[in-house]
């Protein structure tokens, strides 16, 4: 294992996959000469040249479409969205083209494309730069959605996403890029898509989350442990397709669930998890599934308001207490 930051782990994944397969190329704003807006693609232009590390004008719709077209005829593009806020401009391409091309053509096309970049709120970026988009993409059959929470997972899952033959939405988080963690030294470290991962074992309550939310959950678990409550933290890793089997193992053990996410509540990831859990695991529940989300407001700029809006480990603890019937 080697200690490295989340961005370094992603960089390593890109590097390895581009070295391994000439069909893989990276395209997006500032990915080349600028070394990446968040330095995820640092050094790649020097190594692979401007044909494979492509700076684009500010045209999300068309470079998403160019990537999809290239994928349709055999290449394996990685399209960087500087942030997923801007992916909204490319939604038509992603949903109407990438997700649906295979079905409309009865399987004649494979679209092995990855759209990656930071998703969700960061710090004081205000409303238009704080959009959580994971639930929108999860709604669409034809897409896969992945959201790693650690450097190790980032590396293994990005490699898997690039190798996957279907369009993958790969969601990172700006505030995680500096996070350090142990990363596997295995020569070709690939994690499976579609499988969740228990980040912390426990018996009393299941905290399920993904991406940055995992760290709120882990923080809450630490605190709860001091009070003798043993929380199990389940990292979804892949949001679509969901690993209900893995999740069920945890729920059957603890009988109580708290979901954690940074997006808005209506139709968020927690909403889907709550439906699936109560539908498939009804008789194992000792309490209703409870979710922790941000408040239902566009993100304000003021620091104190943003702090209020965003979920924290404390919110997770309060939710856990509710399902544990502790005061």
């Amino acid at each position, binding site marked *: 294992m080697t200690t490295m930051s989340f961005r370094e782990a992603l960089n390593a994944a890109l590097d390895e996959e581009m070295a391994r397969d000439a069909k893989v190329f990276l395209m997006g704003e500032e990915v080349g000469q600028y070394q990446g807006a968040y330095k995820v693609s640092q050094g790649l232009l020097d190594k692979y040249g401007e044909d494979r590390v492509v700076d684009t004008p500010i045209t999300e*719709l068309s*470079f998403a479409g*160019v990537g999809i077209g290239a*994928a349709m005829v055999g290449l394996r593009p990685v399209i960087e969205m500087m942030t997923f806020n801007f992916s909204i401009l490319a939604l038509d391409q992603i949903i*109407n083209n990438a997700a649906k091309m295979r*079905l409309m*053509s009865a399987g004649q096309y494979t679209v092995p494309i990855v759209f990656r970049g930071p998703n969700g709120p960061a710090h004081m970026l205000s409303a238009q730069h704080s959009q959580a988009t994971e639930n929108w993409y999860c709604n669409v059959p*034809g897409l896969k959605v992945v959201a790693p929470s650690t450097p190790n997972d980032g590396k293994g899952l990005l490699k898997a996403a690039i190798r996957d033959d279907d369009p993958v939405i790969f969601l990172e988080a700006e505030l995680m890029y500096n996070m350090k963690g142990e990363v596997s030294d295995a020569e070709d470290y690939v994690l499976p898509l579609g499988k969740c991962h228990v980040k912390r074992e426990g018996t009393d309550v299941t905290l399920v989350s993904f991406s940055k939310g995992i760290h709120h959950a882990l923080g809450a678990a630490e605190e709860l442990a001091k009070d003798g409550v043993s929380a199990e933290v389940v990292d979804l890793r892949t949001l679509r*397709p969901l*690993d209900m089997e893995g999740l069920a193992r945890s729920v059957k053990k603890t009988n109580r669930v708290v979901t954690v996410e940074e997006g808005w509540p209506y139709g968020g990831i927690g909403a889907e998890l709550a439906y699936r859990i109560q539908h498939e695991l009804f008789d194992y529940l000792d309490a209703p599934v409870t979710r922790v989300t941000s408040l239902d407001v566009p993100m304000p700029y003021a620091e104190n308001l943003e702090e209020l809006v965003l979920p924290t480990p404390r919110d997770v603890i309060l939710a856990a207490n509710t399902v544990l019937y502790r005061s």
Partner: protein
Amino acid sequence: MGETETKQLFCDAAATEAFGRDRLREAFKQMIGIRRFEERAAREYASGKISGFCHLYIGQEAVATGSLAALEAKDHVITAYRDHAHALLRGCTPRDTMAELFGKVTGNARGRGGSMHMFAREHGMHGGHGIVGAHIPLATGFGWASRYEKRGDVTLCFFGEGALNQGAFYESLNLASLWHLPVVYIVENNRYAMGTSLERASAVVDLYKKAEGFGMPGVAVDGMDVTKMWQATQEAVDRARTEMRPTFIEARCYRYRGHSMSDPAKYRTKEEVADYKQVDPVLLAERTLHDRGWATEEETEAWDDEARDAAADAADFADGSPQPRLEDVGEYVYRTPLQWHPTEGTTPHHRD
């Protein structure tokens, strides 16, 4: 006003010479085949065998036929939803095209696509797209892949003049010029985007002039003349293949039917339609063949009969074909579905 500039009774002499006897005979056969197919499709729609949208190419046959004659087997074609002709010209048969219109499993997209989504990937026919202008970036992506792997192939990207005002068009042509991509962008200017005439939608109606804003060559062509379409496209295709530079072609044409099957076409006069019928591309080609002795009346009539027969045969085939199997509803969504299945997260509906 954007009318065809020459009301001639024959195809352009020089272009016809260059096109040659064999190719013109072939082009006529293709165009009459498309014409009879589209007429039969209209009839099947009126009988309820085809449902949803159905956009007919009647009147525009020369645009696709002429331009596709400039291509090699490895080249790519992509268009919007008025795509039956492009499909028939590039890898699809009347049978599998009609079957796709009928929503049958024997269709070229196995009934999953319908009128607007005809595909034949192996022959370089990449659809068939429903969102106006949204396929233009895809075409640009084909050009990107061609350049990336030095494949030497060329992409023809067709769209209507209504798509010209979409952001996707502007972004794509800019990228094609900037990155030197081998794409020929062809706007099939039939003067009406559904009910809105070009004059009411576009500040500039000489559309080929927009090319200048992208730093690429632009040219207007008589889209009713199959030889001129071929000639202009051949020039652009050569430029793309050898110089890696895109071209923008404005094909001035006309559609004799409404925008789609539901269109009462109240936005243009009967006189205007009659006017354009004098320059029916199929008639132009036929007359030219007869005039030059490149084909006899017997021959062209026989080809017409064959075309009608092929259309009738296609309709019978489609009618007798089965729909897709219900249990296959989840097919073709993912290449590697993992544990996904189409009923997940749903309350299964039991049809006991």
